[in-house]
């Protein structure tokens, strides 16, 4: 009796110790993950110096950086550019991705396997090499530099059918018998899609829209190349990076960069938190089914 009790006690202290260690590790981790963001937030409120300083907590607090960000710089243009691109890309990409993934998942036609393999091989080329020729062609019709948002919309959406994998994985899990039942009842393929499949596809539709909308906010490479450092055509990523290009720029714009970062992060984070459930479903669904 005594022995088993002691054994029990041993187990419990062991669990306690391991749990305490885990708590300590988790707290340290959370600090590491959060500190940079807290620093950005704090530095964005600093007034006494616009450059880089060796400390984090401002000596004089205020909203000056935010005010000058919106009134004295090109930031509003960049913000609007990115917002417009994001909205258009979200809609078009959703349509393209759903069309492609639905077709490849639910329909059997000649050349389906071949098409999927072809897209797989295409995806092995780095997307950026298409930029060199696309830039020349787009600038030939005036869709780069100051009109870069239109060029970027095309570049982001045109080939988006290639990213059908996650969404196809979702459609693969919807039982085919539903389609067949509807077909027996005389529904056309179009009706099967709109009346049977789409109403069940809310998670994947929202996931697709969310990822598509967020992509232009984070993309740097394409936006930088298509806008060619013309301020009017930049997105927030390119614009804010341009403020840190040189030491001289950094000294003048560092705190504004922080404020800009906060302005970009707030809406995206809110949106993400709001739709987190769908994102998790999409990501893990994609991981489970490749």
């Amino acid at each position, binding site marked *: 009796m005594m022995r088993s009790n002691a054994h029990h006690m041993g187990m419990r202290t062991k669990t306690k110790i391991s749990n305490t260690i885990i708590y300590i590790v988790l707290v340290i981790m959370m600090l590491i993950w959060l500190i940079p963001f807290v*620093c950005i937030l704090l530095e964005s409120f600093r007034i006494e110096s616009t450059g880089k300083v060796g400390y984090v907590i401002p000596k004089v607090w205020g909203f000056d950086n935010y005010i000058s960000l919106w009134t004295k710089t090109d930031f509003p243009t960049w913000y609007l550019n990115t917002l417009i691109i994001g909205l258009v890309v979200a809609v078009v990409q959703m349509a393209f991705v759903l069309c492609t993934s639905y077709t490849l998942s639910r329909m059997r036609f000649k050349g389906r396997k071949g098409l999927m393999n072809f*897209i797989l091989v*295409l995806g*092995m080329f780095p997307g950026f090499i298409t930029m060199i020729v696309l830039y020349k062609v787009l600038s030939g019709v005036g869709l780069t530099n100051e009109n870069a948002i239109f060029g970027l919309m095309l570049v982001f959406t*045109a080939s988006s059918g290639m990213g059908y994998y996650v969404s196809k994985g979702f459609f693969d899990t919807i039982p085919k018998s539903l389609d067949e039942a509807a077909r027996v009842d005389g529904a056309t393929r179009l009706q099967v899609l709109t009346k049977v499949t789409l109403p069940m596809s809310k998670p994947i539709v929202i996931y697709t829209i969310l990822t598509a909308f967020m992509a232009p906010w984070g993309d740097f490479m394409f936006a930088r190349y298509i806008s060619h450092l013309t301020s009017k055509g930049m997105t927030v990523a390119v614009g804010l990076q341009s403020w840190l290009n040189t030491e001289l720029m950094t000294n003048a714009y560092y705190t504004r960069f922080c404020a800009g970062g906060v302005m970009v992060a707030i809406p995206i984070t809110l949106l993400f938190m709001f739709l987190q459930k769908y994102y998790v479903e999409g990501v893990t669904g*994609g991981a489970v*089914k490749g």
Partner: protein
Amino acid sequence: MRKLTDLEYLALNRPRKILYRIGLFFCGIPAWFLRLILAIWGYIKRFGLAIKNEVLDIINTFRNGSWKTRVSYFIMGFGNVSRGQIMRGLLFFFFEALFIFYMVAFGGHWLAKFGTLGDVAPHDEYSAVYDAYIRVNGDDSFKVLLYGLLTIFFIIAFIYTWRLNVKQNRIAEEILSTGKKLKSGKDDVKSLIDDKFHKTLLALPLSGIIIFTVMPIIFMILVAFTNYDGAHDGYSNLFTWVGGANFNELISGASSNGNLSYTFGEILSWTLMWAFFATFTNYFLGMFVAIMINKRGIRLKKVWRGILVLTIAIPQFVSLLYVSRLFASNGIVNSLLMNWGWVSQPIQFWKDPTLSRIMVILVNIWVGIPYLMLIATGILMNIPQDLYESSKIDGANTFKQYTKITLPYMLFVTGPYLLTSFIANINNFNVIYLLTWGQAVDNPALTTSGGNATSVDLLITWLFKITTGATSNYKLAAVIGIMIFVVVAIISLVVYNVIPSTRNEEDYQ
């Protein structure tokens, strides 16, 4: 190596089993290559056979067909119109008319120049109007290459359509001879939302892919065989075909501007090293974090997860640029370290060749763990809990449970994901570029070997640098692009053949 029977294999002890399997894998490589070559040969043979059948069918249709069919060989759509399928017939006819018009008006010109990519350089010409020599534009090699390529595409599309037109005549004759009716234009439109619905759905996405991905990629593959760069921009100075010279420059090192093969070798090996570390550190640490948070008895699970997921939402460029400046030589980290007297000189986090490599991997862990935590949590929850219960009764400790249950399950489910994230890391532009941009990393050997690369550059950031830099070395960029493709393709092929396929798309339907 002798292949063991099942019984013999089971009789081996553990290390020997593993050795046997590794040996089997390497012994299998020649046979695997042989199979690959045979498969390719099979494709070529089947392709040849298909072409032969097509040609035979075209000849036979002409021989056996009615006069309507025969006229359709020259006037596309004639057969359709004369048999009452007006809409199809007119589409065919207009396509043919457009093709002939295009070829006569433009296509022929571009095709003729395609072999040389233009032969008229800009030059001065005497003008009687001004009584002076004025500058005249010559050919533009870029346009010649682009329009030449488009013309070739158009010709292929025409041949395909023409073949379709012939086939439709044969089918129409067959249907009519059995006494049935042909489809009307109305039926055609209706079938687009029904049994031909896949064509409707794929039309726009596929055209997008062809115009914005397929054509540019073929164009760039062609560019790899030209001398297109800043000095040969096409209009002020023509560029032309140079064969495999660019590949030669990159591989053998015989280069006009330094020793490019050294740069390429360095960057390629670092790219692979980076992809390996970036993928697996994230994978295992992310899984570890997920397991820690998932552990029974840990409270505030939602808070821990929520904080990590929050960091996914914040756009990467914000955090990466900020972290980059945090660790800069005059950044906060160095100021603090110097204030505390721990170092006397600022640490060159981004400039030291080795330290910068370690730093980008560490920061990448910081960026990547939340994603992996999210994915791993979802999968861990799917592992049947009774597996753990029964293993506990059998006396397995936590570590044993991890290696025998959790890890195999995770690896099995996320096999394909590991491959895609490895490839994504090969092309991980943002982390490297945003962290180390403008912080010229010191590596004398790379500086002198040409190509303007640094020791943290991946193939993709190098590609970006040489296309946006002063030299605009497009030909080299094209070659590097092809090299990235080759690397990715080889890795994918090997992995697909080694890991058991975890996925069958018909499983759930």
